[in-house]
């Protein structure tokens, strides 16, 4: 222990003041020097020296006062040195492996604890040499160990990553151990630091360690023999498109199972959708497996690539890898067939053509049978109507079929009506629009088609030409196709133009079984049962959707004098955009939208769940009450498959009220690893139970990942080589416990840095303020006073 003193300023004046002060000091000292040098012969030298000393003392006093000088006395202890021990706590340390096939497997964590216990003697020797042993655990971050854990290293290895480079770099940080020089680093690990590029990872690690300038001794805890199959990584896009082939590729790595056949499965929301057979090759050989899928519907899905577990596998946590794919609709393929050109066809074509997301294929019957023999056909631009190609061969390639005032019988389409029915059952969307031709020949009255339609078309239907304004039904008030009619001034159709044609249709007998709903009805016409005749009706047979419209005059909703706009949009556009979106189950058509900030999270990460509500005219809607819940996806899927099963218990739930911008959010924490579905529900506008999926419920899936990525590659060999290279590159020692190696008592240490007065550990400090109190001022006054007295006495100036 030594004592060191120093002067410390308490105040530093501004630059200008410093200059002025300096000038004054210089003048005072120069003057004193001149006075001393040119003193009179009668002035004793001793007296002149005293006068000069008094001047210097006065200047010093002024200096002390101006800079508030403090005299510091530090008791400094010499620097100590420390050894940083980094113990791996990542998930790969739980892997059981063995040095050979005859030996039973042991977990790497257990091997680490044994190696640390075996190094007790060495650790004692380090302490005797004055080394401080600083024990830390590392995974994705570094964690200080103390007490029993520092003595035994007994922890649960579950870290999701192994960032050894960051841990080594942080070893130099002596913020918590000031004055303790880093002498050595000891790493106990399996060396698997993650990443597919082993060489790059090793190079980076060695570079970081070399910059530290300290020997790194490594203890290798992995062993070459293990049994495991892993889905090492997956390559899949975030998005896929309905009816477009999407490719998912995975890499399978196995150990100890060479030659064995396995079946790799692709699952969607827990259900198998594909499989691929594979014969495993040698240890650590990466084998690709590919799946091609063509999603059949839009939505967000959790896909999973799964390999079957084998007895005795080192870990099952890497037997599957899940990922979220959002399936979007590519361009919507719409087939628009019209029986006759007219203004209604024109209006619908215009709006469909305007939508860049619509791929429109149109066939309009431009000539009647009476017209055929009249013309020189070379002058015509017409082509035959490819009935078989459209309704037999290519029908399934469309998303939406619109039969617009189309008489199926004369054009040989009646024989394909059952194909159209099947198309709808299998998920297609169909619109039937009336007029003078469409419902007039009974062509849509086959049993197969009639079982899908909300209206009865078994008999030809006549057309009424009296102008009318339709009536919005209770269901229509809530439905996304017609709910917008209540927007604006709320007068509904009263503010809109009259229609001038109406096909006198009735609801189908099976309408209830189909969940058929009338959204708009004729204001006065009723069927034989007294029910209002439907103008716009919808049904949802099988996996498809159907809209029937018993008029060919909706074009008037977009072409009228002083046309009322609803939230800035033409009523015609709102009606037909709503029809198309509902038919195609467009997520964005929903008045309730739900999102998470990411599709995939690590365990412990915060999950942001956000909702947005829209009015019927798709403007933000404030003060909407919502409920939300988060369910395990497996439980939700099982409940969906079993109608008798009870609602699965949510792991989280709550309530929201949207803000002025129609938004609400919540942060979820501490969800266990797994796939989840978040669901938000809004009550109907009249407070009744939900009556339509897109209006009242929104759903999102997300994944909380287990540390599978850390376990993607668990082969110890690359880790062993890496640790050996790390030790060799830094002058440390490579210790292999499996070969009997133990940590050395004479650990390789780095060269100590030279001690300087400003370094070392200050054990105690004493301060004496030279400027405080009257002392300095008294010294100043006495010094100047005495100098003046002596000068006067000896006649000096």
């Amino acid at each position, binding site marked *: 222990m030594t004592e060191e003193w120093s002067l410390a300023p308490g105040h530093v004046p501004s630059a200008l003041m410093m200059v002025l002060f300096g000038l004054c000091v210089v003048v005072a000292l120069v003057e004193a020097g001149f006075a001393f040098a040119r003193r009179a012969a009668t002035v004793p030298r001793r007296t002149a020296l005293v006068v000069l000393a008094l001047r210097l003392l006065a200047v010093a006093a002024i200096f002390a006062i101006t800079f508030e000088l403090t005299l510091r006395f530090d008791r400094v202890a010499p620097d100590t040195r420390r050894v940083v021990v980094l113990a791996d706590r990542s998930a790969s340390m739980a892997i059981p492996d063995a040095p050979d096939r005859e030996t039973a497997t042991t977990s790497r964590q257990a091997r680490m604890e044994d190696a640390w216990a075996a190094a007790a003697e060495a650790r004692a020797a380090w302490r005797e040499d004055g080394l401080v042993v600083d024990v830390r655990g590392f995974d994705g971050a570094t964690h200080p160990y103390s007490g029993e854990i520092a003595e035994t290293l007994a922890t649960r290895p579950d870290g999701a990553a192994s960032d050894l480079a960051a841990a080594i770099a942080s070893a130099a940080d002596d913020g918590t151990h000031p004055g303790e020089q880093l002498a050595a680093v000891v790493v106990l690990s399996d060396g698997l630091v993650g990443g597919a590029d082993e060489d790059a990872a090793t190079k980076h690690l060695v570079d970081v360690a070399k910059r530290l300038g300290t020997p790194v001794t490594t203890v290798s805890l992995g062993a070459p023999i293990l049994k495991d199959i892993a889905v090492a990584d997956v390559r899949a896009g975030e998005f896929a498109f309905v*009816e*477009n082939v999407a490719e998912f590729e995975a890499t399978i790595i196995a150990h100890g199972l060479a030659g064995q056949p396995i079946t790799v499965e692709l699952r969607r929301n827990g259900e198998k959708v594909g499989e691929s057979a594979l014969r495993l090759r040698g240890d650590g050989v990466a084998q690709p497996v590919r799946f091609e899928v063509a999603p059949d519907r839009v939505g967000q899905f959790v896909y999973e690539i799964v390999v079957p577990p084998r007895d005795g596998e080192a870990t099952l946590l890497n037997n599957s890898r899940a990922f979220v794919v959002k399936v979007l609709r*590519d361009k919507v*393929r719409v087939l628009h067939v019209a*029986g*006759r050109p*007219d*203004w209604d*066809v*024109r*209006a619908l*074509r*215009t709006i469909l*053509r305007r939508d860049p997301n619509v*791929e429109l*294929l*149109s066939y*309009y019957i*431009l*000539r*009647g049978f009476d*017209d*055929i023999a*009249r*013309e020189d056909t*070379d002058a*015509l*631009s*017409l*082509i*035959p109507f490819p*009935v078989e*190609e459209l309704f037999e061969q290519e029908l*399934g390639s469309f998303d939406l079929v619109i039969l617009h005032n189309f008489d199926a*019988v*004369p*054009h*040989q389409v009646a024989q394909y009506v059952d194909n159209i029915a099947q*198309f709808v059952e299998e*998920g*297609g969307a169909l619109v039937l629009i009336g007029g*003078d*031709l469409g419902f*007039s*020949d*009974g062509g849509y*009255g086959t049993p197969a088609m009639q079982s899908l339609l909300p209206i009865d078309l078994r*008999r*030809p239907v006549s*057309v009424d*030409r009296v102008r009318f304004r339709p009536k919005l039904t209770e269901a229509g008030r809530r439905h996304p196709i017609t709910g917008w009619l209540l927007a604006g001034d709320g007068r509904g159709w009263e503010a809109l133009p009259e229609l001038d*044609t109406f096909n006198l249709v009735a609801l189908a007998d099976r309408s209830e079984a189909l969940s058929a709903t009338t959204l708009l009805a004729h204001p006065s016409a009723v069927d034989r049962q007294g029910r209002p005749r439907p103008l716009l009706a919808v049904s949802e047979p099988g996996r498809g959707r159907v809209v029937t419209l018993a008029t*060919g005059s909706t*074009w008037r909703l*977009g*072409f*009228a*004098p002083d*046309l009322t706009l609803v939230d800035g949009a*033409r009523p015609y556009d709102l009606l037909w955009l709503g029809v198309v979106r509902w038919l195609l189950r467009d997520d964005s058509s929903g008045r309730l939208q739900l999102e998470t900030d990411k599709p995939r999270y690590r365990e412990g990460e915060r999950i942001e769940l956000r909702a947005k509500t829209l009015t019927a005219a798709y403007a933000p809607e404030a003060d909407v009450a919502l409920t939300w819940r988060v369910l395990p996806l497996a439980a939700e899927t099982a409940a969906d498959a079993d109608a008798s099963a009870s609602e699965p218990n949510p792991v989280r739930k709550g309530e929201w009220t949207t803000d002025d911008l129609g938004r609400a959010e919540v942060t979820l924490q501490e969800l266990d690893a797994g796939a989840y579905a978040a669901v938000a529900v809004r009550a109907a506008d009249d407070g009744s139970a939900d009556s339509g999926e897109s209006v009242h419920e929104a759903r999102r899936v997300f994944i909380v990942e287990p540390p599978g990525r850390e376990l993607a590659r668990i082969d110890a060999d690359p880790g062993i080589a890496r640790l050996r290279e790390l030790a060799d590159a830094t002058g440390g020692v490579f210790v292999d416990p499996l070969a009997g190696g133990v940590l050395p008592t004479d650990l390789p240490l780095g060269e100590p840095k030279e001690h300087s007065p400003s370094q070392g550990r200050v054990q105690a400090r004493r301060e004496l303020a030279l400027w405080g109190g009257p002392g300095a001022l008294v010294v100043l006054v006495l010094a100047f006073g005495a100098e003046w007295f002596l000068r006067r006495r000896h006649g000096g100036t």
Partner: protein
Amino acid sequence: MLRRMSAAAGWVAAGLAIPARARASAAPSDPAPWLLPEDVPAISIDLPQLRYDGHWAPRPGAMRVLARELRLRTRLEPVAEPTTVEADDDALFDTPFLYVAGDEGLPKLGRGGEARLRQFLDLGGLAVFDAADGGTDLAFTRSVEDLLSRISPASELGPVARDHVLFRSFYLVDAPVGRTSTVDHLLAIQEEGRIKALLMRNDMGGALAETADGRVAHPCVPGGAEQRQWAIRLGVNVLLYATCTDYKADRAHVETLLRARRWR
């Protein structure tokens, strides 16, 4: 090219449809008594002509003839007697089509009339201006240009390209002839590919018009009867374009569209 595309006009539809129709009418025991399309009164469309203070009908009956030809040649069902309408009349919006003829400068239609016409075009209507002078006088043409510059100031009147779908919406028409063939092009205001207003300078109405006893009212120069046929065909094309817009432009891509995607 379009002619080649349509060369396979071996009327499969007709060939199949005629037996189908025969089957339908020869099947009295059918459980469902089918109504043939012609048994149900067709929903007609109007071809209204603008009525204004001036010589608004230089070719009387032209629209009646066009309506007849459309009924005979196409599946369109125009009314037998097209109506007339004034610019400031709400009835202007009964049909998104308007025929305007004249052989002298158009008079001012008044602020109300022009506002209605502007709304008519903006909401998707098609106005067809037909210069009865046949290209020999610019009074009507210039007045139409002035009118359009006021009611559709953001768009300019420009020539319609020869490959525009208007020339192949039903017939394959090479030249926009009318009673005359003086001007070899049509002028139009187009917006986002849609023709809002069309100016025909070769007197289409003159080619269509007939006397009371059904004879041609005005000989077509220089092509005579054949030129009249082409003028009628152009008129048919205009109405097929009015009702089907650019439908015929789809057809060029049909093969690609049909083979683009996988199955459901």
